[in-house]
């Protein structure tokens, strides 16, 4: 009789070859069966296993059968060995999994209709795939507190908890804040905090992400949207120089949540709470949706784009004509590489030689993700030739504004008034103040002409993080009102000065920039993909 077992592929010295459900796989020595199965394109279901955390082995969902091993083994903690024959869907395995599903649900409230996790809940997914579909449990369930504020932003429902301890391990191993522990034992075991020491660390939201069920929910997202309506748009966080990879959970032209997207070279599986909530600024801060112009005495009034660009160009032309020293620009390192590249070219066309990129620093670099540099694209600013953020140069320009030496100022994405760097009255006195921003900042309100830009989530573009990794932000939302991406605004503003370049998209801008910047050589907008790419020499 022919041997029905497929032959094992050859394995290198640091590798082992094995069969998982008759699929040959070669993995590095020390790889677990669960990971090896993943490599072979097979899912071994699991709750407690998380690639970013230590192995706990407690959920028992990943039980699999190994030839010549009498008991079922857990895939998450069993190392693949040479010649191992693993089976993940035998009747024994299926019965065991069905049992685990039944056990996990006997004390679960089955309150899916009111649970935020519904739709992305492992209990739902696995019950459908591996469960019996019914329960033989007819007794009273164990009852626990529900809707309990376990931390500032995290709500705990102990009845939904399956004690996989992912959240505890996150706080012990990743945030190192150690607020959580398992209390009691048996079927009365419960996750908890020490009285007076709630779950409150800069990364607490990740406990919600790692929770495979609805036990931990993110307060700002509770009851906001059913997850099956959300479209996850892959992007990068613009909250600091790290550029954590994220998904923007979008529904009806609104971001409802921001969650980390795994990128082992940037943020692994995590993001900070501040970044997680950064999308909220878009709806919480006042927008202006049409260009504004300020008549000599009155408050700003909306005007059409053509007229606004004309007036802004006229203001800048006058200022430049009065002497190149009398005009300057303050540019934000929160802009995309595309914005910064066009800004750089536009400033040259307009004749503004004096430029400062504004720094924003807060706190310290921490052990995990948070960067003191709160600008997501300082490297990008330097790359396009605008220079690195420099507080001294910003200060000098603003001092010259106050003293009257500078008569024209173009502010792109910055708010020196709101940041307390200059009194509003000094900027209002300026003969030529042109501001470009996505929100109605005090500086916008003081501007002679203010041009409305797209906000985060509305624009497409690239950010270069502190490690020199170019990453794409994708537009998740339609731009509000008449807002435009900064690069398009700057191109329009420079056109009366002879600036001839036309761009159809951010992609076109990037490709032009890449052609001229050695560190970007060979890159294209498309090639950045969802994971980004490192700059040459970074």
């Amino acid at each position, binding site marked *: 009789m022919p041997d029905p077992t497929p032959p094992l592929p050859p394995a290198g010295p640091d590798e082992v070859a094995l069969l998982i459900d008759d699929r040959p796989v070669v993995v590095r020595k020390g790889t677990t069966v669960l990971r090896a199965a993943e490599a072979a394109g097979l899912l071994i279901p699991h709750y407690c296993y998380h690639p970013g955390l230590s192995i706990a082995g407690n959920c028992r969902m990943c039980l699999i059968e190994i030839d010549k091993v009498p008991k079922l083994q857990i895939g998450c903690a069993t190392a693949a060995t040479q010649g191992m024959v693993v089976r993940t869907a035998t009747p024994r395995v299926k*019965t065991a999994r069905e049992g685990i599903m039944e056990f996990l649900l006997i*004390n679960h409230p089955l309150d899916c209709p009111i649970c935020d996790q519904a739709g992305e809940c492992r209990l739902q997914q696995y019950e459908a795939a591996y469960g019996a579909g019914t329960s033989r449990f007819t007794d009273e369930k164990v009852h626990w507190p529900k809707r309990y504020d376990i931390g500032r932003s995290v709500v705990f429902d102990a009845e939904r908890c399956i004690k996989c301890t992912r959240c505890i391990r996150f706080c012990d191993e990743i945030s190192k804040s150690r607020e959580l522990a398992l209390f009691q034992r048996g079927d009365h075991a419960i996750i908890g905090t020490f009285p007076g020491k709630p779950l409150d660390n800069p990364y607490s939201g990740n406990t919600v992400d790692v929770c495979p069920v609805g036990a931990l929910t993110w307060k700002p997202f509770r009851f906001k949207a059913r997850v099956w309506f959300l479209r996850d748009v892959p992007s990068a966080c613009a909250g600091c120089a790290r550029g954590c990879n994220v998904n923007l959970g979008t529904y009806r032209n609104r971001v409802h949540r921001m969650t980390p997207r795994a990128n082992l070279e940037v943020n692994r599986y995590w993001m900070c709470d501040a970044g997680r909530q950064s999308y909220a600024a878009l709806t919480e801060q006042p927008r202006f949706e049409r260009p504004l112009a300020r008549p000599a005495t009155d408050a700003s009034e909306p005007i059409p784009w053509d007229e606004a660009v004309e007036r802004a160009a006229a203001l800048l032309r006058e200022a430049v004509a009065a002497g190149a020293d009398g005009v300057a620009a303050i540019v934000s390192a929160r802009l995309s590489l595309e914005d910064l590249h066009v800004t750089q070219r536009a400033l040259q066309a307009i004749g503004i030689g004096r430029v400062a990129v504004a720094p924003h620093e807060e706190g310290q670099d921490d052990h995990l993700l948070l960067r003191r540099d709160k600008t997501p694209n300082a490297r990008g600013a330097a790359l396009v030739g605008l220079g690195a953020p420099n507080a001294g140069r910003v200060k000098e320009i603003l001092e010259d504004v106050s003293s009257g030496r500078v008569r024209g100022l173009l502010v792109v994405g910055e708010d020196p008034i709101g940041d307390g760097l200059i009194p509003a009255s000094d900027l209002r006195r300026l003969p030529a103040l042109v501001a470009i921003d996505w929100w109605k900042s005090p500086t916008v309100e003081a501007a002679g002409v203010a041009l409305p830009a797209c906000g985060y989530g509305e624009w497409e573009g690239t950010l270069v993080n502190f490690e020199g990794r170019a990453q794409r932000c994708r537009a998740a939302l339609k731009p509000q009102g008449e807002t435009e991406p900064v690069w398009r605004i700057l191109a329009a503003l420079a056109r009366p000065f002879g600036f001839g370049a036309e761009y159809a998209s951010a992609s076109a801008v990037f490709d032009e920039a890449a052609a001229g910047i050695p560190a970007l050589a060979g890159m294209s907008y498309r090639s950045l993909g969802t994971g980004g790419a490192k700059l040459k020499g970074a």
Partner: protein
Amino acid sequence: MAYDKLLTRNLGKPNSATLDAYQASGGYQGLRRVFKEFTPEKFVEEVKASGLRGRGGAGFPAGVKWGFLPKGLEVPRYLCVNADESEPGTFKDRLLIEQDPHLVLEGIIASAWAIGCHTAFFYIRGEFHKGARIFQKAIEEAYAKGLLGRNILGSGFDLDLIVYRGAGAYICGEETALLESLEGKRGLPRIKPPFPAVVGLYGCPTIINNVETLANVTLIAERGAAWFAAIGRPKNTGPKLFCVSGHVARPGVYEAPLGIPMKELIEMAGGMMRPDRPLKAVVPGGSSMKILPAAKCDVLMDFDSLAAAGTSLGSAGMFVMDSGTCMVDALWNVCRFYAHESCGQCTPCREGTGWFVKILKRLERGDGVPDDVELLDNVASRVEGNTICPFGEAVAWPVQSYVKEFRDEFQEHVTRRGCPLAAAAAR
């Protein structure tokens, strides 16, 4: 056959727990002999040759276990004495600890020497206040007489021994839970492999041996492997302490060679407590082991004979039940124990134990349904083999065996809407 008591030879003598009394009856001669006549490696071989199997419950050969220690690693090795005697029906280690601590201590020193351990721990369950005090005193005496500390008996061997008290958790009798507890944590069993002999206490190679096992090492040190192996039956060698409790006239610890007939042990314990109530069943090895109905009680009390009978010697905590015992009630009690003691770490045990209790409570109270009996058995089959530690079997086995052996009685609880025995007692 006349049998000279070995493990309990000093019991009942005045001041049996003191070093003086112990030495007066020849104590620590075995250790001297071992230091003189063996190398550590040879003594490991000697213990292997004796056939001594662990007395904690699993019955794994002690010398073989020692042999699992990795060779040539420059890290400390630890010996942890498992004195967390918590298996319901078991009270033999307590007896040794309280009445003849030096018999155990001598075995600890010899074993530590054999495996190259210089710091050993005596993990004793927290409730054994008296035992901990007595053993601590024995250790202090030993230090004072050069039996612990530096250069023991001029051998050049150093050993420190620390008493570590548990705090109320059955699961800490499981080797790796014990290690977690000793490290100051919740007593959650670890995933194996790695086994403690490779990665144990503080991540170092560690041997965990039961109290009675180590007392037997003393006997082997005194009189050698061949002598030891001649006691008992092949592959089931040496003397054994049997704990007999429940419905017997004189519950207690009885020493006999491995392989003594169960019925003889019951006779040693004075026979049944009430003459009017015959034997109904015996659990031979602590509550985790499968129950034997009276008809299956003509067995020998050793590892292999009981395995052949479908159960296990376990901790030799043998409890006897007479005809007045309701098996549903008894199993309810057993499952309450396991539900209370489940560490709560892994799914089948955490959820299954509580579920058993709920079903059994209903059955006993008369609220059972016909499917319940099958349900008990089936749920047990989904716990068994699927947990991190042997606790899963420890609860599944009683459930499966009580149901299997007394299925009619369980069914009767459904059809008669409650416990027939309780109803009879109430009449």
